[in-house]
């Protein structure tokens, strides 16, 4: 499988997610973790952009990072899959390469 | 230097504070006090137990000023003063009592 893109920065603070969306090829997977989980939240300035991008990409978000920040399940954009650390590893091995947008 | 209690060894830092909060048990407090040449009575335990519950709730060891005020509110005005607490813990209420309670050294305590 193609490329797994990971984003660990908040879109409010850095342009990592923006660059990722701009340069990832349709069909790629995008995993949001650490402060990057903020990008998976509903009703933010970025939510609509993400919802649109879901036509092109599979989105994942790391559950433990969501919970740590008190950002519960009902706040996540529909269609983004919540994964745990084991899934993170599986995603990494299931893709040919990983690009980290630091 | 590790602390030996009931045949078990517990890791401490260079100042004698317990390395792992979850290792704590009352016998450890007694052993630490004994090493300091002190014996723990009911009044000591009141403070130690208070510190443990404060840490549980707020994830910090309170500063002396905060401890004094809170003890006064919880255990009565006669106990909520630094004279009372220093008599119980002559090395400093926050420092010594926190150590016995298995907490890290209070933030801001040099």
């Amino acid at each position, binding site marked *: 499988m193609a490329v797994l893109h990971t984003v*660990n*920065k*908040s879109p*409010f*603070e850095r342009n990592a997610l923006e660059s990722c969306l701009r340069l990832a090829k349709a069909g790629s997977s995008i995993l949001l973790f*650490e*402060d*990057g989980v*903020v990008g998976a*939240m*509903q*009703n*933010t*300035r970025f*939510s609509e952009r993400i919802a649109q991008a879901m036509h092109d990409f599979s989105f994942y978000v790391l*559950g*433990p*990072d969501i*919970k*740590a*920040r*008190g*950002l*519960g399940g009902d*706040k996540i954009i529909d269609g983004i899959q919540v994964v*745990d650390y084991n899934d993170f590893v599986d995603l990494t091995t299931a893709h040919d390469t990983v690009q980290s947008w630091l | 230097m590790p602390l030996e209690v009931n045949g078990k060894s517990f890791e401490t830092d260079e100042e004698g504070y317990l390395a792992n909060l979850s290792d704590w048990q009352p016998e450890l407090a007694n052993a630490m006090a004994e090493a300091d040449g002190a014996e723990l009575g009911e009044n000591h335990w009141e403070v130690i137990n208070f510190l443990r519950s404060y840490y549980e*709730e*707020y*994830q*910090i060891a*309170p*500063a002396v*000023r*905060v401890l004094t*005020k*809170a003890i006064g*509110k919880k255990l009565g005005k006669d106990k909520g003063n630094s004279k009372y607490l220093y008599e119980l813990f002559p090395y400093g209420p926050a420092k010594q009592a926190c150590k016995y309670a298995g907490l890290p050294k209070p*933030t*801001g305590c040099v």
Partner: protein
Amino acid sequence: MENGEGVVKKFCYINRKAPYGTIYALESLEVVLIAAAFDQDISLVFADDGVYQLTKGQDTEGIGMKNFSKTYTALGDYDIKKVYVEKESLEERGLSADDLQALKYEDEDDDWAEKDSLFIVGRNDLATIIDEQDVILSF
């Protein structure tokens, strides 16, 4: 302003980073707790991603870090009574006051009545608050 023991200055801590991903939030909190011993006039400001520091229901077990969000609720014990959260930063993130922890202090001069110490303020008011400070520390 002299109070007999020294000059009281207005200190303001501005917090703009989400917790856990970087060390800023925790470092700021530690400095605040230490500085609280010096009896200054302290305000905390949470803006931009800093508002995520105050969300309720944080559970850090899964990431193996200390849940220091509980410590914010002890700020009242340290006589920190002015915590300002920028309204626009919350809105931009789909958050509201209901998503934040309650922060209270006990008023010594009012029979220890519990009072709110968290205030949600618009950006114009926040600009004024920042403008009135003697010392500003940024995190």
